[in-house]
Protein backbone atom coordinates (compact mmCIF):
# COMPACT_ATOMS: atom_id res chain seq x y z
CA UNK A 1 0.00 0.00 0.00
CA UNK A 2 2.82 2.29 0.95
CA UNK A 3 4.55 1.37 -2.29
CA UNK A 4 1.54 2.34 -4.31
CA UNK A 5 1.17 5.61 -2.50
CA UNK A 6 4.85 6.29 -3.02
CA UNK A 7 4.45 5.51 -6.72
CA UNK A 8 1.49 7.82 -6.93
CA UNK A 9 3.26 10.58 -5.10
CA UNK A 10 6.38 10.53 -7.24
CA UNK A 11 5.08 12.80 -10.01
CA UNK A 12 4.11 15.34 -7.38
CA UNK A 13 7.46 15.48 -5.62
CA UNK A 14 9.58 18.57 -5.93
CA UNK A 15 12.54 16.57 -7.16
CA UNK A 16 10.60 15.28 -10.13
CA UNK A 17 9.57 18.76 -11.10
CA UNK A 18 13.11 20.04 -10.69
CA UNK A 19 14.38 17.30 -12.97
CA UNK A 20 11.73 18.13 -15.53
CA UNK A 21 12.65 21.78 -15.47
CA UNK A 22 16.33 20.86 -15.66
CA UNK A 23 15.79 18.75 -18.76
CA UNK A 24 13.83 21.51 -20.44
CA UNK A 25 16.37 24.22 -19.65
CA UNK A 26 19.26 21.95 -20.57
CA UNK A 27 18.41 21.72 -24.25
CA UNK A 28 19.23 25.31 -25.26
CA UNK A 29 22.34 25.20 -23.08
CA UNK A 30 23.39 21.93 -24.70
CA UNK A 31 22.78 23.28 -28.19
CA UNK A 32 24.86 26.36 -27.43
CA UNK A 33 27.70 24.26 -25.98
CA UNK A 34 27.70 21.81 -28.88
CA UNK A 35 27.67 24.55 -31.47
CA UNK A 36 30.49 26.43 -29.75
CA UNK A 37 32.67 23.35 -29.45
CA UNK A 38 32.12 22.02 -32.94
CA UNK A 39 32.53 25.39 -34.61
CA UNK A 40 35.71 26.29 -32.71
CA UNK A 41 37.31 22.90 -33.23
CA UNK A 42 36.52 22.89 -36.93
CA UNK A 43 37.83 26.45 -37.22
CA UNK A 44 41.00 25.46 -35.41
CA UNK A 45 41.58 22.43 -37.64
CA UNK A 46 40.96 24.47 -40.78
CA UNK A 47 43.15 27.36 -39.63
CA UNK A 48 45.98 25.11 -38.51
CA UNK A 49 46.90 25.11 -42.19
CA UNK A 50 47.89 28.75 -41.66
CA UNK A 51 49.57 28.12 -38.29
CA UNK A 52 47.07 30.12 -36.22
CA UNK A 53 45.10 26.95 -35.36
CA UNK A 54 46.89 26.24 -32.08
CA UNK A 55 46.68 29.92 -31.18
CA UNK A 56 42.94 29.88 -31.81
CA UNK A 57 42.54 26.80 -29.65
CA UNK A 58 44.60 28.44 -26.96
CA UNK A 59 42.45 31.56 -27.12
CA UNK A 60 39.28 29.55 -26.79
CA UNK A 61 40.19 27.31 -23.87
CA UNK A 62 38.39 29.47 -21.30
CA UNK A 63 35.19 29.19 -23.34
CA UNK A 64 35.02 25.40 -23.04
CA UNK A 65 35.78 25.54 -19.35
CA UNK A 66 33.23 28.28 -18.79
CA UNK A 67 30.48 26.43 -20.67
CA UNK A 68 31.18 23.36 -18.59
CA UNK A 69 30.94 25.56 -15.53
CA UNK A 70 27.49 26.79 -16.66
CA UNK A 71 26.36 23.15 -16.91
CA UNK A 72 27.76 22.34 -13.48
CA UNK A 73 26.08 25.39 -12.07
CA UNK A 74 22.76 24.44 -13.65
CA UNK A 75 22.91 20.93 -12.22
CA UNK A 76 23.81 22.32 -8.86
CA UNK A 77 21.06 24.88 -8.74
CA UNK A 78 18.26 22.89 -10.32
CA UNK A 79 19.04 19.46 -8.92
CA UNK A 80 21.20 20.20 -5.93
CA UNK A 81 23.86 17.89 -7.41
CA UNK A 82 27.22 19.30 -6.45
CA UNK A 83 29.80 18.55 -9.13
CA UNK A 84 33.19 19.79 -7.98
CA UNK A 85 35.21 21.91 -10.40
CA UNK A 86 38.33 20.45 -11.96
CA UNK A 87 41.72 21.79 -10.88
CA UNK A 88 42.14 25.44 -11.86
CA UNK A 89 43.99 26.29 -15.02
CA UNK A 90 47.76 26.59 -14.54
CA UNK A 91 49.53 29.04 -16.75
CA UNK A 92 53.12 28.48 -17.83
CA UNK A 93 55.25 31.59 -18.25
CA UNK A 94 55.86 33.16 -21.63
CA UNK A 95 53.68 33.31 -24.70
CA UNK A 96 54.68 29.83 -25.89
CA UNK A 97 54.14 28.52 -22.37
CA UNK A 98 50.71 30.07 -22.39
CA UNK A 99 49.78 28.46 -25.70
CA UNK A 100 51.19 25.13 -24.60
CA UNK A 101 49.41 25.15 -21.28
CA UNK A 102 46.14 26.20 -22.91
CA UNK A 103 46.33 23.46 -25.54
CA UNK A 104 47.41 20.75 -23.14
CA UNK A 105 44.86 21.74 -20.50
CA UNK A 106 43.15 18.39 -19.94
CA UNK A 107 40.16 19.93 -18.20
CA UNK A 108 39.16 22.03 -21.20
CA UNK A 109 39.50 19.05 -23.56
CA UNK A 110 37.28 17.01 -21.28
CA UNK A 111 34.84 19.91 -21.17
CA UNK A 112 34.76 19.88 -24.98
CA UNK A 113 34.03 16.15 -24.96
CA UNK A 114 31.21 16.75 -22.51
CA UNK A 115 29.74 19.58 -24.54
CA UNK A 116 29.64 17.38 -27.64
CA UNK A 117 28.31 14.21 -25.97
CA UNK A 118 25.77 16.14 -24.01
CA UNK A 119 23.69 17.22 -26.99
CA UNK A 120 22.22 13.75 -27.79
CA UNK A 121 21.52 13.22 -24.11
CA UNK A 122 19.80 16.57 -23.80
CA UNK A 123 17.72 15.95 -26.93
CA UNK A 124 16.74 12.53 -25.61
CA UNK A 125 15.86 14.08 -22.27
CA UNK A 126 13.80 16.74 -23.94
CA UNK A 127 11.84 14.18 -25.98
CA UNK A 128 11.35 11.77 -23.08
CA UNK A 129 10.25 14.47 -20.67
CA UNK A 130 8.09 16.12 -23.27
CA UNK A 131 6.29 12.92 -24.28
CA UNK A 132 5.79 11.50 -20.82
CA UNK A 133 4.92 14.62 -18.90
CA UNK A 134 2.97 16.49 -21.54
CA UNK A 135 1.47 13.28 -23.00
CA UNK A 136 0.52 12.00 -19.57
CA UNK A 137 -1.01 15.24 -18.50
CA UNK A 138 -2.97 15.65 -21.68
CA UNK A 139 -4.13 12.00 -21.46
CA UNK A 140 -5.39 12.39 -17.92
CA UNK A 141 -7.18 15.58 -18.69
CA UNK A 142 -8.44 14.45 -22.10
CA UNK A 143 -12.12 13.72 -21.17
CA UNK A 144 -12.39 17.01 -19.42
CA UNK A 145 -10.78 18.85 -22.27
CA UNK A 146 -12.90 17.15 -24.90
CA UNK A 147 -16.04 17.88 -22.89
CA UNK A 148 -15.06 21.49 -22.70
CA UNK A 149 -14.18 21.45 -26.40
CA UNK A 150 -17.54 19.98 -27.28
CA UNK A 151 -19.29 22.47 -25.12
CA UNK A 152 -17.53 25.38 -26.61
CA UNK A 153 -17.28 24.31 -30.21
CA UNK A 154 -20.70 22.85 -30.86
CA UNK A 155 -23.66 25.10 -30.86
CA UNK A 156 -25.89 24.52 -27.82
CA UNK A 157 -28.73 23.12 -29.89
CA UNK A 158 -26.59 20.53 -31.66
CA UNK A 159 -25.14 19.34 -28.39
CA UNK A 160 -28.52 19.00 -26.87
CA UNK A 161 -29.73 17.09 -29.92
CA UNK A 162 -27.00 14.41 -29.60
CA UNK A 163 -26.87 13.57 -25.89
CA UNK A 164 -26.80 9.79 -26.46
CA UNK A 165 -24.36 9.82 -29.36
CA UNK A 166 -21.80 11.54 -27.14
CA UNK A 167 -21.88 8.76 -24.54
CA UNK A 168 -19.55 6.29 -26.32
CA UNK A 169 -17.31 9.17 -27.18
CA UNK A 170 -17.09 10.05 -23.52
CA UNK A 171 -16.42 6.41 -22.62
CA UNK A 172 -13.69 6.24 -25.28
CA UNK A 173 -12.28 9.44 -23.94
CA UNK A 174 -12.23 7.96 -20.45
CA UNK A 175 -10.08 5.08 -21.71
CA UNK A 176 -7.30 7.57 -22.50
CA UNK A 177 -7.16 8.54 -18.82
CA UNK A 178 -5.39 5.41 -17.47
CA UNK A 179 -2.96 5.57 -20.39
CA UNK A 180 -2.17 9.16 -19.47
CA UNK A 181 -1.89 8.19 -15.80
CA UNK A 182 0.63 5.46 -16.60
CA UNK A 183 2.68 7.91 -18.66
CA UNK A 184 2.49 10.46 -15.90
CA UNK A 185 3.56 7.93 -13.27
CA UNK A 186 6.44 6.77 -15.46
CA UNK A 187 7.50 10.32 -16.38
CA UNK A 188 9.62 11.07 -13.29
CA UNK A 189 11.48 7.77 -13.61
CA UNK A 190 12.18 8.08 -17.31
CA UNK A 191 13.29 11.65 -16.84
CA UNK A 192 15.52 10.55 -14.00
CA UNK A 193 17.23 7.99 -16.21
CA UNK A 194 18.20 10.69 -18.67
CA UNK A 195 19.25 13.08 -15.93
CA UNK A 196 21.31 10.27 -14.42
CA UNK A 197 23.05 9.71 -17.75
CA UNK A 198 23.86 13.40 -17.91
CA UNK A 199 25.15 13.24 -14.38
CA UNK A 200 27.47 10.36 -15.21
CA UNK A 201 28.88 12.33 -18.15
CA UNK A 202 29.25 15.34 -15.93
CA UNK A 203 31.20 13.65 -13.15
CA UNK A 204 33.34 11.79 -15.66
CA UNK A 205 34.12 14.72 -17.87
CA UNK A 206 33.72 18.04 -16.12
CA UNK A 207 34.16 17.02 -12.52
CA UNK A 208 37.45 16.55 -10.77
CA UNK A 209 39.70 14.07 -12.52
CA UNK A 210 40.04 10.43 -11.65
CA UNK A 211 42.72 9.25 -9.27
CA UNK A 212 45.42 8.41 -11.81
CA UNK A 213 44.97 11.72 -13.53
CA UNK A 214 44.94 13.43 -10.19
CA UNK A 215 48.26 11.78 -9.40
CA UNK A 216 49.70 12.96 -12.70
CA UNK A 217 48.37 16.42 -12.05
CA UNK A 218 49.93 16.46 -8.58
CA UNK A 219 53.22 15.25 -10.01
CA UNK A 220 53.18 18.11 -12.45
CA UNK A 221 52.42 20.55 -9.70
CA UNK A 222 55.20 19.13 -7.56
CA UNK A 223 57.66 19.44 -10.43
CA UNK A 224 56.54 23.02 -10.83
CA UNK A 225 56.97 23.71 -7.12
CA UNK A 226 60.41 22.08 -7.06
CA UNK A 227 61.61 23.98 -10.14
CA UNK A 228 60.12 27.15 -8.78
CA UNK A 229 61.93 26.88 -5.48
CA UNK A 230 65.19 26.08 -7.28
CA UNK A 231 64.74 29.18 -9.41
CA UNK A 232 63.97 31.24 -6.32
CA UNK A 233 67.11 30.04 -4.55
CA UNK A 234 69.15 30.92 -7.61
CA UNK A 235 67.63 34.40 -7.57
CA UNK A 236 68.42 34.84 -3.87
CA UNK A 237 72.01 33.85 -4.52
CA UNK A 238 72.26 36.33 -7.36
CA UNK A 239 70.72 39.09 -5.27
CA UNK A 240 73.27 38.40 -2.55
CA UNK A 241 76.05 38.56 -5.13
CA UNK A 242 74.85 41.79 -6.70
CA UNK A 243 73.79 43.39 -3.46
CA UNK A 244 75.27 42.57 -0.10
CA UNK A 245 78.50 40.98 -1.36
CA UNK A 246 79.34 43.85 -3.72
CA UNK A 247 78.56 46.37 -0.98
CA UNK A 248 80.73 44.59 1.55
CA UNK A 249 83.62 44.48 -0.91
CA UNK A 250 83.21 48.20 -1.58
CA UNK A 251 83.23 48.86 2.18
CA UNK A 252 86.37 46.78 2.62
CA UNK A 253 88.09 48.70 -0.17
CA UNK A 254 87.22 52.03 1.41
CA UNK A 255 88.51 50.81 4.75
CA UNK A 256 91.69 49.69 3.08
CA UNK A 257 92.14 53.13 1.52
CA UNK A 258 91.41 54.80 4.83
CA UNK A 259 94.07 52.66 6.43
CA UNK A 260 96.60 53.70 3.82
CA UNK A 261 95.77 57.36 4.43
CA UNK A 262 96.03 57.00 8.18
CA UNK A 263 99.27 55.14 7.80
CA UNK A 264 100.76 57.94 5.78
CA UNK A 265 100.00 60.66 8.33
CA UNK A 266 101.80 61.36 11.56
CA UNK A 267 100.25 63.12 14.53
CA UNK A 268 101.74 66.48 15.54
CA UNK A 269 101.60 65.71 19.22
CA UNK A 270 101.89 62.55 21.23
CA UNK A 271 98.18 62.74 21.97
CA UNK A 272 97.14 62.98 18.37
CA UNK A 273 99.62 60.25 17.55
CA UNK A 274 97.91 58.01 20.10
CA UNK A 275 94.44 58.73 18.78
CA UNK A 276 95.73 58.13 15.27
CA UNK A 277 97.00 54.78 16.45
CA UNK A 278 93.58 53.96 17.95
CA UNK A 279 91.84 54.91 14.73
CA UNK A 280 94.22 52.67 12.84
CA UNK A 281 93.41 49.75 15.10
CA UNK A 282 89.69 50.39 14.71
CA UNK A 283 89.97 50.50 10.93
CA UNK A 284 92.00 47.30 10.98
CA UNK A 285 89.39 45.60 13.17
CA UNK A 286 86.59 46.80 10.88
CA UNK A 287 88.49 45.54 7.87
CA UNK A 288 88.97 42.15 9.49
CA UNK A 289 85.29 41.85 10.32
CA UNK A 290 84.34 42.92 6.81
CA UNK A 291 86.59 40.29 5.30
CA UNK A 292 85.06 37.63 7.51
CA UNK A 293 81.59 38.83 6.60
CA UNK A 294 82.48 38.59 2.89
CA UNK A 295 83.71 35.02 3.36
CA UNK A 296 80.62 34.13 5.42
CA UNK A 297 78.35 35.62 2.79
CA UNK A 298 80.13 33.63 0.12
CA UNK A 299 79.70 30.39 2.01
CA UNK A 300 76.07 31.24 2.67
CA UNK A 301 75.42 31.99 -0.99
CA UNK A 302 77.22 28.84 -2.07
CA UNK A 303 75.08 26.88 0.37
CA UNK A 304 71.95 28.37 -1.16
CA UNK A 305 72.88 27.79 -4.77
CA UNK A 306 76.41 27.09 -6.00
CA UNK A 307 76.79 29.47 -8.97
CA UNK A 308 78.87 26.91 -10.83
CA UNK A 309 75.67 24.88 -11.17
CA UNK A 310 74.56 27.43 -13.76
CA UNK A 311 77.38 26.08 -15.86
CA UNK A 312 76.43 22.45 -15.30
CA UNK A 313 76.57 19.79 -12.63
CA UNK A 314 79.97 18.53 -13.80
CA UNK A 315 81.56 21.98 -13.39
CA UNK A 316 80.15 22.33 -9.89
CA UNK A 317 81.20 18.79 -8.95
CA UNK A 318 84.72 19.43 -10.26
CA UNK A 319 85.20 22.18 -7.69
CA UNK A 320 83.49 20.11 -5.00
CA UNK A 321 85.81 17.15 -5.47
CA UNK A 322 88.87 19.40 -5.72
CA UNK A 323 87.95 20.99 -2.40
CA UNK A 324 87.18 17.67 -0.74
CA UNK A 325 89.12 16.95 2.43
CA UNK A 326 89.59 13.35 1.29
CA UNK A 327 91.25 13.15 -2.14
CA UNK A 328 88.38 12.63 -4.53
CA UNK A 329 88.19 11.83 -8.18
CA UNK A 330 85.34 12.90 -10.41
CA UNK A 331 83.95 10.85 -13.28
CA UNK A 332 81.20 12.78 -15.01
CA UNK A 333 79.39 11.85 -18.18
CA UNK A 334 76.38 14.06 -18.58
CA UNK A 335 75.55 14.53 -22.25
CA UNK A 336 72.09 15.75 -21.25
CA UNK A 337 71.51 18.25 -18.52
CA UNK A 338 68.90 17.34 -15.92
CA UNK A 339 66.56 20.09 -14.71
CA UNK A 340 68.06 22.76 -12.47
CA UNK A 341 66.29 21.46 -9.37
CA UNK A 342 67.61 17.94 -9.92
CA UNK A 343 71.13 19.27 -10.49
CA UNK A 344 70.93 21.19 -7.23
CA UNK A 345 69.70 18.15 -5.28
CA UNK A 346 72.42 15.97 -6.82
CA UNK A 347 75.06 18.57 -5.98
CA UNK A 348 74.02 18.88 -2.35
CA UNK A 349 73.81 15.09 -2.02
CA UNK A 350 77.36 14.75 -3.35
CA UNK A 351 78.54 17.49 -0.98
CA UNK A 352 76.90 15.80 2.00
CA UNK A 353 78.25 12.38 1.05
CA UNK A 354 81.79 13.70 0.60
CA UNK A 355 81.55 15.38 4.00
CA UNK A 356 80.45 12.05 5.46
CA UNK A 357 83.39 10.33 3.82
CA UNK A 358 85.77 12.81 5.43
CA UNK A 359 84.04 12.64 8.81
CA UNK A 360 83.28 8.97 9.32
CA UNK A 361 84.90 6.67 6.81
CA UNK A 362 88.59 7.17 7.42
CA UNK A 363 88.95 6.68 3.67
CA UNK A 364 92.09 7.60 1.81
CA UNK A 365 90.35 8.05 -1.48
CA UNK A 366 86.87 8.72 -2.76
CA UNK A 367 85.26 8.67 -6.19
CA UNK A 368 82.27 10.68 -7.34
CA UNK A 369 80.51 9.48 -10.46
CA UNK A 370 77.74 11.38 -12.17
CA UNK A 371 76.23 9.56 -15.14
CA UNK A 372 73.32 10.14 -17.40
CA UNK A 373 71.15 7.05 -17.81
CA UNK A 374 68.05 7.48 -20.02
CA UNK A 375 65.54 9.37 -17.90
CA UNK A 376 67.79 9.24 -14.86
CA UNK A 377 70.73 10.91 -13.25
CA UNK A 378 72.87 8.42 -11.39
CA UNK A 379 75.23 9.74 -8.75
CA UNK A 380 77.60 7.37 -7.03
CA UNK A 381 79.96 8.24 -4.22
CA UNK A 382 82.33 5.49 -3.17
CA UNK A 383 85.24 5.38 -0.75
CA UNK A 384 87.80 2.91 0.50
CA UNK A 385 86.99 3.55 4.15
CA UNK A 386 85.81 1.40 7.03
CA UNK A 387 82.21 0.98 5.81
CA UNK A 388 79.25 0.54 8.13
CA UNK A 389 77.23 3.51 6.79
CA UNK A 390 73.56 3.25 7.76
CA UNK A 391 70.43 5.31 7.36
CA UNK A 392 69.81 5.86 11.04
CA UNK A 393 66.72 7.74 12.02
CA UNK A 394 67.64 11.41 12.22
CA UNK A 395 71.09 10.76 10.75
CA UNK A 396 72.57 12.56 7.77
CA UNK A 397 71.85 9.73 5.34
CA UNK A 398 68.22 9.52 6.49
CA UNK A 399 67.83 13.24 5.90
CA UNK A 400 69.34 12.79 2.46
CA UNK A 401 66.97 9.93 1.64
CA UNK A 402 64.06 12.08 2.74
CA UNK A 403 65.20 14.93 0.54
CA UNK A 404 65.50 12.53 -2.40
CA UNK A 405 61.99 11.25 -1.86
CA UNK A 406 60.56 14.69 -2.57
CA UNK A 407 61.45 14.12 -6.22
CA UNK A 408 61.04 10.33 -6.32
CA UNK A 409 64.78 9.83 -6.03
CA UNK A 410 66.26 6.67 -4.55
CA UNK A 411 69.33 5.91 -2.53
CA UNK A 412 70.97 2.52 -2.15
CA UNK A 413 73.74 1.91 0.31
CA UNK A 414 76.31 -0.81 0.17
CA UNK A 415 78.61 -0.47 3.15
CA UNK A 416 79.73 -3.73 4.72
CA UNK A 417 81.86 -3.50 7.85
CA UNK A 418 85.41 -2.99 6.69
CA UNK A 419 84.23 -1.21 3.56
CA UNK A 420 84.22 -0.24 0.86
CA UNK A 421 81.18 2.07 0.93
CA UNK A 422 79.25 2.68 -2.25
CA UNK A 423 76.24 4.97 -2.10
CA UNK A 424 74.20 5.21 -5.26
CA UNK A 425 71.58 7.85 -5.82
CA UNK A 426 69.16 7.80 -8.69
CA UNK A 427 67.16 10.86 -9.57
CA UNK A 428 64.67 11.42 -12.38
CA UNK A 429 66.22 13.75 -14.96
CA UNK A 430 63.30 16.08 -14.43
CA UNK A 431 61.45 16.51 -11.18
Amino acid sequence: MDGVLWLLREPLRRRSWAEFKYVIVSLPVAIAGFTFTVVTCVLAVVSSAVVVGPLLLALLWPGARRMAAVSRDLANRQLGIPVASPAPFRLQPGIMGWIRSAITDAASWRARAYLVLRLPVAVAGYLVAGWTWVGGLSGVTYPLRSAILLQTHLPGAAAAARPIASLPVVAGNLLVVPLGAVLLLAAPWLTRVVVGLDQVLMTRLIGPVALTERVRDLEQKRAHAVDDSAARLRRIERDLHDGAQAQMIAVAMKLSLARQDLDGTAGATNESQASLQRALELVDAARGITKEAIADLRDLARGIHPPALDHGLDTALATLTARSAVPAQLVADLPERPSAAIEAIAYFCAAELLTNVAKHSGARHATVEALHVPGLLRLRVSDDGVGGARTDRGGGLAGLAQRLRTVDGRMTISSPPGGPTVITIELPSHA
Partner: protein
Amino acid sequence: MQIVIAEDAALVRAGLTEVLARCGHEVVAAVGDAESLRAAIAQHRPDIAVVDVRMPPSYTDEGLRAAIALRRDHPDLALLVFSQYIETRYTADLLGTASPRGAAGVGYLLKDRVADVGEFLDALNRVAAGGTALDPEVVTQLIGASRRTDGLRSLTTREREVLALMAQGHSNGAIAASLVISDRAVEKHVGNIFTKLGLPPSDTYHRRVLAVLRYLES
Protein backbone atom coordinates in the same frame (compact mmCIF):
# COMPACT_ATOMS: atom_id res chain seq x y z
CA MET B 1 100.07 51.59 -16.13
CA GLN B 2 96.98 51.69 -18.34
CA ILE B 3 94.16 49.57 -17.04
CA VAL B 4 90.70 48.50 -18.21
CA ILE B 5 88.25 47.34 -15.56
CA ALA B 6 85.28 45.06 -16.31
CA GLU B 7 83.03 44.59 -13.31
CA ASP B 8 79.26 44.57 -13.25
CA ALA B 9 78.71 45.85 -9.69
CA ALA B 10 78.90 49.63 -9.97
CA LEU B 11 80.06 50.05 -6.36
CA VAL B 12 83.00 47.72 -6.78
CA ARG B 13 83.82 49.20 -10.17
CA ALA B 14 83.96 52.69 -8.67
CA GLY B 15 86.01 51.40 -5.74
CA LEU B 16 88.54 49.71 -8.00
CA THR B 17 88.82 52.81 -10.16
CA GLU B 18 89.44 54.94 -7.09
CA VAL B 19 92.05 52.61 -5.65
CA LEU B 20 93.95 52.34 -8.92
CA ALA B 21 93.78 56.07 -9.64
CA ARG B 22 95.14 56.84 -6.18
CA CYS B 23 98.08 54.59 -6.82
CA GLY B 24 98.97 56.51 -9.93
CA HIS B 25 97.54 54.10 -12.49
CA GLU B 26 95.41 55.22 -15.36
CA VAL B 27 92.02 53.53 -15.64
CA VAL B 28 91.29 54.12 -19.30
CA ALA B 29 87.91 52.40 -19.21
CA ALA B 30 85.64 50.89 -16.59
CA VAL B 31 82.87 48.78 -18.14
CA GLY B 32 80.07 46.55 -16.90
CA ASP B 33 79.83 43.73 -19.44
CA ALA B 34 81.89 41.48 -21.65
CA GLU B 35 80.94 43.15 -24.92
CA SER B 36 82.08 46.58 -23.72
CA LEU B 37 85.25 44.96 -22.36
CA ARG B 38 86.18 43.65 -25.81
CA ALA B 39 85.49 47.06 -27.33
CA ALA B 40 87.48 48.88 -24.65
CA ILE B 41 90.48 46.57 -25.07
CA ALA B 42 90.43 47.00 -28.83
CA GLN B 43 90.19 50.76 -28.48
CA HIS B 44 92.61 51.50 -25.64
CA ARG B 45 95.12 48.67 -25.87
CA PRO B 46 95.82 48.76 -22.10
CA ASP B 47 98.66 47.04 -20.28
CA ILE B 48 96.33 44.99 -18.14
CA ALA B 49 92.63 44.16 -17.83
CA VAL B 50 90.96 43.49 -14.50
CA VAL B 51 87.93 41.27 -15.18
CA ASP B 52 85.12 39.94 -13.02
CA VAL B 53 83.98 36.41 -13.93
CA ARG B 54 80.30 37.05 -13.42
CA MET B 55 78.81 39.59 -15.74
CA PRO B 56 75.54 40.15 -17.53
CA PRO B 57 73.51 38.83 -19.19
CA SER B 58 73.58 35.36 -17.64
CA TYR B 59 75.85 36.13 -14.68
CA THR B 60 77.66 32.81 -14.94
CA ASP B 61 81.07 33.00 -16.58
CA GLU B 62 80.80 35.71 -19.22
CA GLY B 63 83.84 37.50 -17.85
CA LEU B 64 85.91 34.35 -17.89
CA ARG B 65 84.99 33.51 -21.46
CA ALA B 66 85.76 37.08 -22.48
CA ALA B 67 89.13 36.82 -20.73
CA ILE B 68 89.97 33.57 -22.52
CA ALA B 69 89.05 35.16 -25.85
CA LEU B 70 91.17 38.21 -25.03
CA ARG B 71 94.11 35.99 -24.22
CA ARG B 72 93.83 34.50 -27.67
CA ASP B 73 93.31 37.78 -29.51
CA HIS B 74 95.75 39.91 -27.52
CA PRO B 75 98.60 37.65 -26.38
CA ASP B 76 100.46 40.62 -24.87
CA LEU B 77 97.59 41.70 -22.65
CA ALA B 78 98.04 40.86 -18.97
CA LEU B 79 94.85 39.65 -17.29
CA LEU B 80 93.77 39.70 -13.70
CA VAL B 81 90.53 37.78 -13.25
CA PHE B 82 88.38 38.16 -10.15
CA SER B 83 85.67 35.85 -9.02
CA GLN B 84 83.32 35.56 -6.10
CA TYR B 85 84.00 31.83 -6.18
CA ILE B 86 86.95 29.88 -7.36
CA GLU B 87 85.87 27.08 -9.67
CA THR B 88 88.40 24.43 -10.59
CA ARG B 89 87.06 24.24 -14.12
CA TYR B 90 87.41 27.98 -14.61
CA THR B 91 90.98 27.89 -13.37
CA ALA B 92 91.84 25.16 -15.85
CA ASP B 93 90.10 27.06 -18.65
CA LEU B 94 91.90 30.30 -17.89
CA LEU B 95 95.38 28.99 -17.18
CA GLY B 96 95.09 26.25 -19.77
CA THR B 97 95.07 28.97 -22.41
CA ALA B 98 98.43 30.34 -21.29
CA SER B 99 99.62 32.43 -24.17
CA PRO B 100 102.06 30.51 -26.37
CA ARG B 101 104.96 32.79 -25.68
CA GLY B 102 104.20 32.82 -22.00
CA ALA B 103 104.93 36.53 -22.01
CA ALA B 104 101.71 38.03 -20.66
CA GLY B 105 100.91 37.53 -17.03
CA VAL B 106 97.72 36.08 -15.72
CA GLY B 107 96.06 36.15 -12.33
CA TYR B 108 93.00 34.53 -10.84
CA LEU B 109 91.95 35.86 -7.48
CA LEU B 110 89.03 35.61 -5.15
CA LYS B 111 87.17 38.90 -5.13
CA ASP B 112 87.81 39.27 -1.41
CA ARG B 113 91.42 40.08 -2.21
CA VAL B 114 90.57 43.52 -3.53
CA ALA B 115 89.53 44.30 0.03
CA ASP B 116 93.22 44.35 0.84
CA VAL B 117 94.54 47.14 -1.33
CA GLY B 118 98.17 46.29 -0.72
CA GLU B 119 97.72 42.63 -1.65
CA PHE B 120 95.66 43.60 -4.66
CA LEU B 121 98.24 46.05 -6.01
CA ASP B 122 100.97 43.53 -5.40
CA ALA B 123 99.13 40.93 -7.47
CA LEU B 124 98.37 43.52 -10.14
CA ASN B 125 102.03 44.47 -10.46
CA ARG B 126 103.14 40.86 -10.61
CA VAL B 127 100.69 40.06 -13.37
CA ALA B 128 101.50 43.24 -15.29
CA ALA B 129 105.16 42.25 -15.15
CA GLY B 130 104.30 38.96 -16.86
CA GLY B 131 104.05 36.85 -13.72
CA THR B 132 101.20 34.91 -12.21
CA ALA B 133 98.98 35.63 -9.25
CA LEU B 134 96.84 32.75 -8.12
CA ASP B 135 94.58 32.91 -5.14
CA PRO B 136 95.57 30.58 -2.29
CA GLU B 137 92.15 29.02 -2.78
CA VAL B 138 92.97 28.31 -6.44
CA VAL B 139 96.19 26.65 -5.39
CA THR B 140 94.45 24.58 -2.71
CA GLN B 141 92.00 23.32 -5.31
CA LEU B 142 94.71 22.65 -7.85
CA ILE B 143 96.65 20.63 -5.33
CA GLY B 144 93.41 18.89 -4.39
CA ALA B 145 92.74 18.07 -8.01
CA SER B 146 96.29 16.94 -8.60
CA ARG B 147 96.85 14.59 -5.68
CA ARG B 148 96.86 11.66 -8.00
CA THR B 149 99.77 12.81 -10.09
CA ASP B 150 102.89 10.84 -9.36
CA GLY B 151 105.28 13.71 -9.87
CA LEU B 152 103.48 15.88 -7.37
CA ARG B 153 102.95 13.03 -4.97
CA SER B 154 106.68 12.61 -4.55
CA LEU B 155 106.98 16.15 -3.18
CA THR B 156 107.45 16.61 0.53
CA THR B 157 104.99 18.71 2.51
CA ARG B 158 107.45 21.60 2.60
CA GLU B 159 108.12 21.38 -1.12
CA ARG B 160 104.42 21.36 -1.72
CA GLU B 161 104.04 24.51 0.36
CA VAL B 162 106.77 26.15 -1.64
CA LEU B 163 105.14 25.12 -4.89
CA ALA B 164 101.81 26.45 -3.65
CA LEU B 165 103.34 29.85 -2.96
CA MET B 166 105.17 29.72 -6.26
CA ALA B 167 101.90 29.07 -7.99
CA GLN B 168 100.46 32.11 -6.30
CA GLY B 169 103.17 34.02 -8.04
CA HIS B 170 105.50 34.81 -5.14
CA SER B 171 109.24 35.31 -5.55
CA ASN B 172 111.77 33.25 -3.61
CA GLY B 173 112.26 36.10 -1.16
CA ALA B 174 108.54 36.38 -0.49
CA ILE B 175 108.26 32.60 -0.09
CA ALA B 176 111.12 32.61 2.42
CA ALA B 177 109.45 35.37 4.42
CA SER B 178 106.10 33.64 4.31
CA LEU B 179 107.41 30.24 5.48
CA VAL B 180 109.96 31.79 7.85
CA ILE B 181 112.90 29.97 6.28
CA SER B 182 116.05 31.24 4.63
CA ASP B 183 116.31 32.23 0.97
CA ARG B 184 118.87 29.52 0.58
CA ALA B 185 116.42 26.88 1.85
CA VAL B 186 113.78 28.10 -0.60
CA GLU B 187 116.22 27.81 -3.46
CA LYS B 188 117.00 24.27 -2.39
CA HIS B 189 113.29 23.34 -2.27
CA VAL B 190 112.65 24.95 -5.63
CA GLY B 191 115.53 22.99 -7.10
CA ASN B 192 114.11 19.76 -5.67
CA ILE B 193 110.68 20.56 -7.08
CA PHE B 194 112.14 21.11 -10.55
CA THR B 195 114.03 17.83 -10.32
CA LYS B 196 111.08 15.81 -9.03
CA LEU B 197 108.74 17.24 -11.63
CA GLY B 198 111.32 16.46 -14.28
CA LEU B 199 111.77 20.06 -15.46
CA PRO B 200 114.99 20.50 -17.42
CA PRO B 201 117.39 23.19 -16.27
CA SER B 202 116.83 26.36 -18.23
CA ASP B 203 115.74 29.87 -17.51
CA THR B 204 114.52 29.79 -13.91
CA TYR B 205 111.41 31.85 -14.51
CA HIS B 206 110.30 29.60 -17.34
CA ARG B 207 110.71 26.55 -15.12
CA ARG B 208 108.63 28.21 -12.43
CA VAL B 209 105.78 28.65 -14.86
CA LEU B 210 106.10 25.05 -16.00
CA ALA B 211 106.02 23.83 -12.41
CA VAL B 212 102.80 25.72 -11.87
CA LEU B 213 101.36 24.38 -15.07
CA ARG B 214 102.17 20.87 -13.93
CA TYR B 215 99.30 21.28 -11.50
CA LEU B 216 96.92 21.88 -14.33
CA GLU B 217 97.90 18.94 -16.43
CA SER B 218 96.83 16.64 -13.63
